[in-house]
């Protein structure tokens, strides 16, 4: 009996003018475009310079900043107030004031001050902009000091230089961090939300009730809904892996087998979640809002955008209940670090728990009879 139902679901899926195209193009679009736009590698700060000193050293500092590649000097003002106006006009994001006697104080007293002031309406951008600028100034400072001291004392200055070594994501590329998470979002969409909407759609059209007066058992009905989307989900996941390699040459350090194993667990959990939603919603509108509510919570609590470790403690506690958190963690670890199932026992247990929890709930809340 099951094969008649599955056959029907596949016919309906491929006859839909919209779904098959969406499913094929989504991974390509998402993996090509999302990482390009969802990016914290801030570049092209517009910098306003107030150089009241106009000395060789101040000129050197400005050149050093310019050559860093992060800043575009869009404004050169005579006074701090003028520079501030250019920030107000949105012509610059950050300003650097080099005071009069900058060079003289630097040479004579061995220290000088500069003022960095940034527009923090966008806190992220303002913070990063001034942090980069401070580190350039600090770098400049240490160069000048060693140069001056060599002149005065004629010997090397012992200095501690910290050279960070970034493991697993050496370019600190945000893209590489984002792509595994995007793959998961797509998988959740195809295997969790689409079947839920499909079931609620049958409720709306009346065919659900028609099915309930037939001998189709609830387990057959549900399996027939899920199996086609599971198949489609794994096709889409494979396309995602392919697209990541095609566009970015991005391949997991760990094994694909690990990824597929964890994906299967996650798919079980998220389709269970979808079934729970479909049991409580009687219209597509209700279902969409229920999914929207939970998915938004799951995503913000998952560490997709901001690391879980940076959340307040109460939020970290809540994030333990987001299945997305574990699978995104697994994908990032397998892709970047090459973790194996052995290293990932905690997410394995968590995802299994979610799969059991959601599916039991779904079975208990499904009523063929009322």
């Amino acid at each position, binding site marked *: *009996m099951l094969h008649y139902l599955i056959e029907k679901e596949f016919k309906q899926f491929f006859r839909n003018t919209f779904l098959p195209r969406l499913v094929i193009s989504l991974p390509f679009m998402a993996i090509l475009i999302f990482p390009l736009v969802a990016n914290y590698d801030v570049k092209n700060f517009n910098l306003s310079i107030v150089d009241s000193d106009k000395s060789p050293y101040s000129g050197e500092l400005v050149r050093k900043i310019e050559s860093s590649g992060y800043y575009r000097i869009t404004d050169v003002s005579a006074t701090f107030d003028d520079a501030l106006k250019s920030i107000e006009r949105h012509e610059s994001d950050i300003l650097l004031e080099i005071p009069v006697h900058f060079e003289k104080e630097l040479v004579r007293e061995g220290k000088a001050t500069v003022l960095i002031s940034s527009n923090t309406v966008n806190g992220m951008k303002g913070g990063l902009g001034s942090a980069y600028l401070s580190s350039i100034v600090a770098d400049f400072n240490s160069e000048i000091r060693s140069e001056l001291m060599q002149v005065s004392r004629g010997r090397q200055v012992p200095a501690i230089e910290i050279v960070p070594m970034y493991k697993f994501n050496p370019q600190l590329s945000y893209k590489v961090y984002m792509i595994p998470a995007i793959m998961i979002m797509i998988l959740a969409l195809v295997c969790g939300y689409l079947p839920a909407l499909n079931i609620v759609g049958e409720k709306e*059209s009346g065919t659900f009730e028609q099915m309930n*007066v037939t001998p189709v058992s609830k387990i057959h009905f549900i399996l027939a809904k899920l199996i086609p989307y599971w198949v489609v989900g794994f096709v889409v996941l494979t396309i995602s892996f392919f697209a990541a390699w095609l566009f970015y040459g991005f391949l997991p350090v760990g094994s694909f087998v690990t990824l597929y194993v964890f994906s299967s667990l996650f798919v079980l959990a998220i389709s269970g979640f979808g079934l729970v939603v479909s049991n409580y919603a009687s219209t597509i509108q209700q279902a969409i809002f229920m999914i929207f509510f939970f998915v938004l919570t799951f995503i913000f609590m998952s560490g997709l955008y901001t690391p879980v470790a940076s959340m307040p403690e109460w939020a970290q506690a809540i994030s333990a209940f987001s299945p997305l958190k574990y699978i995104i963690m697994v994908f990032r670890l397998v892709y970047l670090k090459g973790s194996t199932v052995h290293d990932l026992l905690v997410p394995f247990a968590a995802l299994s728990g979610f799969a059991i929890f959601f599916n039991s709930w779904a079975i208990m809340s499904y009523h063929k009879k009322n």
Partner: protein
Amino acid sequence: MKQSLPTDIVLSAENLTKKFGSFTAVDSISFEVRKGEIFGFLGANGAGKTTAMRMLTGLSNASSGKGTVAGYDINTQSEQIKKTIGYMSQKFALYDDLKVWENIRLFAGIYGVPAKEIAPRTDRLLRQLDFEKERNTLVKSLPLGWKQKLAFSVAIFHEPSIVFLDEPTGGVDPAARRTFWEMIYQAADRGITVFVTTHYMDEAEYCNRVSIMVDGKIEALDTPGNLKKQFNAQSMDEVFHQLARKSTRKAD
């Protein structure tokens, strides 16, 4: 499929009741339907017809009372009942985005018609309905009258012992209604019991026996001829109006 029952009663209800909170939608109804009979189940909107039918078809649990369909208990054996009945609801319930033959194949498969019989029986059915040209048409592009005929044919494709029709001819033109009733007669001749709700009183005249529900209770149950005599009326329409006047429930 022949049912080997001690009597020829296919459906029975005994003090069947459904309560929603303090509201009694179906109030202790009792009746019997015999094999091969066309049983009209009438009542105004909100009288409790659909609720009663949902209990008999296993979609809804009875609050109290007993019932059997095809020899199975509606309270405990609803899954067995579902194998031996056909059902066609007022809300048209074939799949719009499947073709005519695909709908037939799906429901035949679900009801356990053997796989190799499905194709020849589909051919025969389409020939009888004069539907051969529409075999590959999506159901959503069929006219309503045709859809209803198809839905009825699908509901009896697996030769159920009883078929439930919930306002099958709503919104259909008189000519299509007539051919629809011809199909109902053919099914009854083959021994399929027909349990039908309708709002058209001319259709009530076509039934072997009719019951009329008012405010959750069955107020009258007999052949159309006897009912007209009993209420001293010219037509079933008049009988219905006399009974419906007693209703204290607001129609929806």
